[in-house]
């Protein structure tokens, strides 16, 4: 399933891009990310306690950063496995300067497998956009905090 959207952040593009590639920030932004451990160049191992409402699962995940082209583009790939199935999400982010802030346009793809695919399609799109929303509001908070701090 394809998703796309855009978010505007108050912070400058360089600092947003820096935040996006900072594992500490990423851990706080990726919804439910409890651990993020570097395993290679632009590659991390993660534990995600993700879900919506009362339906939650703990995913063992790998996080990759690809196509890293500071300060305007990169691609985030998250692949998680849990008991009810797997989730694969990719997001290509393009950062544009906008009135001192940053406009992030993203296009991505979310795929699920296993039980999540069998029964989840009714809410898949809403879940994906909710998780994307959480990612960006956390990112906004992080970059804002950085700017203040």
């Amino acid at each position, binding site marked *: 399933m394809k998703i796309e959207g855009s978010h505007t952040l108050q912070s400058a593009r360089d600092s947003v891009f820096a935040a996006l590639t900072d594992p500490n920030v990423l851990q706080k932004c990726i919804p439910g990310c409890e651990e993020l451990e570097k395993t290679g160049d632009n590659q991390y191992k993660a534990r995600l306690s993700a879900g919506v409402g009362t339906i939650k699962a703990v995913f063992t995940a790998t996080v990759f950063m690809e196509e890293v082209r500071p300060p305007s583009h990169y691609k985030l790939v998250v692949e998680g496995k849990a008991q009810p199935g*797997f989730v694969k999400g990719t997001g290509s982010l393009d950062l544009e300067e906008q009135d001192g802030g940053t406009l992030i346009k993203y296009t991505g793809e979310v*795929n699920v497998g296993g039980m999540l*695919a069998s029964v989840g*399609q009714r809410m898949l799109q809403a879940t994906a956009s909710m998780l994307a929303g959480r990612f960006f509001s956390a990112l906004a908070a992080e970059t804002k905090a950085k700017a203040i701090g």
Partner: protein
Amino acid sequence: MAEKYVGKSVKRTEDPRLIQGLAHYVDDIKLPDTAHAAFLRSIYAHAHIKSLDVGAARRAPGVLAVFTGLEASGAIGPVPCAAALPGLKVPDYRVLATNKVCFVGQPIAVVVAENKYAARDAVDLIQVEYEELPVVLNEEKAAQGGPVIHEKFGTNIAYTLTAGEGDIEAALKSADKIVKQKILHRRLAPVAMEPRGVLARYYPGEQELTLWTSTQIPHLARTQIAIMLGMPENKLRLIAPEVGGGFGSKLNVYAEEALMGWISMELDRPVKWIETRRENMQATIHGRGQTGYIEVGCKKDGTITGLRYNVYADMGAYFQLLTPAIPTLTGLMLSGCYKIPAIQMNATGVFTNKVATDAYRGAGRPEATYVVERAMDLVAAELGLDAVAVRRKNFPAPFGGDKPFKTATGLFYDSGDYELTLKKALDMANYPKLREDQKRARNEGRIVGIGVSTYVEICAIGPSAAAPAGGWESATVRIEPTAKVTILTGCSPHGQGQETSFAQLAGDHLGVNINDVTVIHGDTAIVQYGIGTFGSRGTAVGGTAVYMALEKLNEKATKLAAHILEAGSAPVTFQDGKFSAQVKGENKSITIQEVALAAHLARNLPPDMEPGLSATSFFEPKNFTFPFGSHIAVVEIDRDTGEIHFQRYIAVDDCGKVINPLLVHGQVHGGIVQAIGQALYEEVVYDDQGQLVSGTLMDYAVPRAEMVPWMELDRTETPSPVNPMGVKGVGEAGTIGATPAVVSAVIDALSPFGVRHMDMPIKPEDVWRIINKKSAGAA
């Protein structure tokens, strides 16, 4: 012989157990010490299995064993495909995947535990590491190239096939117009209400395995499973107990059936597996799955000159029993109920990363009927003619008796009078008034459509030369010493009601009460070899075998009666259960009950007569039968939302001679509703990664009572010359005839918007987009 039962709406004899919850489906059979199995299935459509760790599952509480492909696939032969086509590439389909999975739901490992709860728990403890491979999903694209599912074939094309007669190029060239249309027959899930299930028990002393399985073909399954297990066929007893619907999905031999047999031998315990609905959606066969291109040539007056159908048929990743053969049935029926001088089908069977397609109610014929009926509508629209007129223009004159109708697909239709059902249906609908009402409704801004389909189908499958594993059927009829009648049929009814209709035959033939008749089926240890119930063959082939056995039995009973009555050369008559003869001026008689006892006591038999009163017949039909009919759907569409509402539904079917009108109505009703499902609601959906996203009944819409119309039914009776009873078959008629009528009605309604074709299922949003001239937006 007076007809007391045949032709009457007799209440079913099988019903008392069913309406009281006293019947036994597989899961209702309880054996002491039964272990329970649960499967781990692939969650990827196409992947290598890098590692499989079942250690934790094996150690889990209550677990008896966990088997993987390494163990099972060495011991059990491949899942069989009985279809034979020239150049067919047959993949090696193992009961459990070994190093690769090719569809979501493919079994990888099986857990056996003390109870089903423990088995289910342990499945979660199995660890699999997959390495994903690119998926192949669209049959048309997969035929052109790209990633290959079975490396050894180097292609995804399983076979190509050209069928049909006549010079198609010349026929199309001679046409005034050629109409072309791409059409989709989407995958459907059969969704028998009882999912599949298997119970296996091995008796080591007797070296005998009993399998209770929810199947339509107990004997064929026995043969195939015995081969898979490498055991003597006569040491495998296969029992189809009560079966909760099949619709073709249980006309098959599945991995789980052989596996349960093997496991019960390995563990020396009874073992049971009952499919969940999710498994049923993923790993029981699907129906349909064709992408086709119609080319139809016509004269200005509507005469069809030729029809070409180029089709890509979605096989799925592996073959089940009949997978590649289904499109051949489409090819056979492409003439519909019309004179078409030249017909050609070019079929390409293509592997995809999905579960196999196979027979689902109609099995290839609904596709053909849909193609031909869409073609008729398209021609009518192109020429500005009434769709009914175009059909009439191409009807053959009534035929039957020793004059069959030959089609350009190589068939000889047995008997038919297509105008007869059409006229009756049009009269019932008051067609001219319907069209007037439609005109008026359109003037008021309403959107009303009328769809007509005239169909013919191929039943009573079939002559053995045309069937993958024999097309005959068997019956034994016995009169027991106490004069109770036992019928053993090789058919395996699972809802069709043949315990009743066969008892009706016996009741009339033998002059007994149908409550004194027991029909036994589905147990290979009791019943002589038979073929099974599918292809609307139960009555026309199985019933004919019963009829022939009854004739034989009557003959013997009459001979014995004559002997006992000392009738000499005087004629013996049989009426109401009594044999009578004028002997020396005296009217002497003896009841069939007395004859039955005499046959068993054997104290006074004619010198050349064997004791007992039993007869067996194996009926080999010389031809198929060809039931036909006309369906009319009237719909109104909500302009604002695109919702489709039925105003009327009329069906006139001709299935030859009718034994029990109540049962015929039931079959037609059910068939029409499955057709409405296909036309408007049902669709198996795989996403672009090959995940089955219509994975439960939350998304796959099986029609509910509120979603379907009241159906006005009638029938005509054109006897079949193919069998002595003149019956044809009716199990699939509704599904075949109704789909094009419903689609046609919706398209007719939308014709003022310039619409000539829409693909199924026609959803409200599709309709709304047409009314609002919107192109399909991103989902």
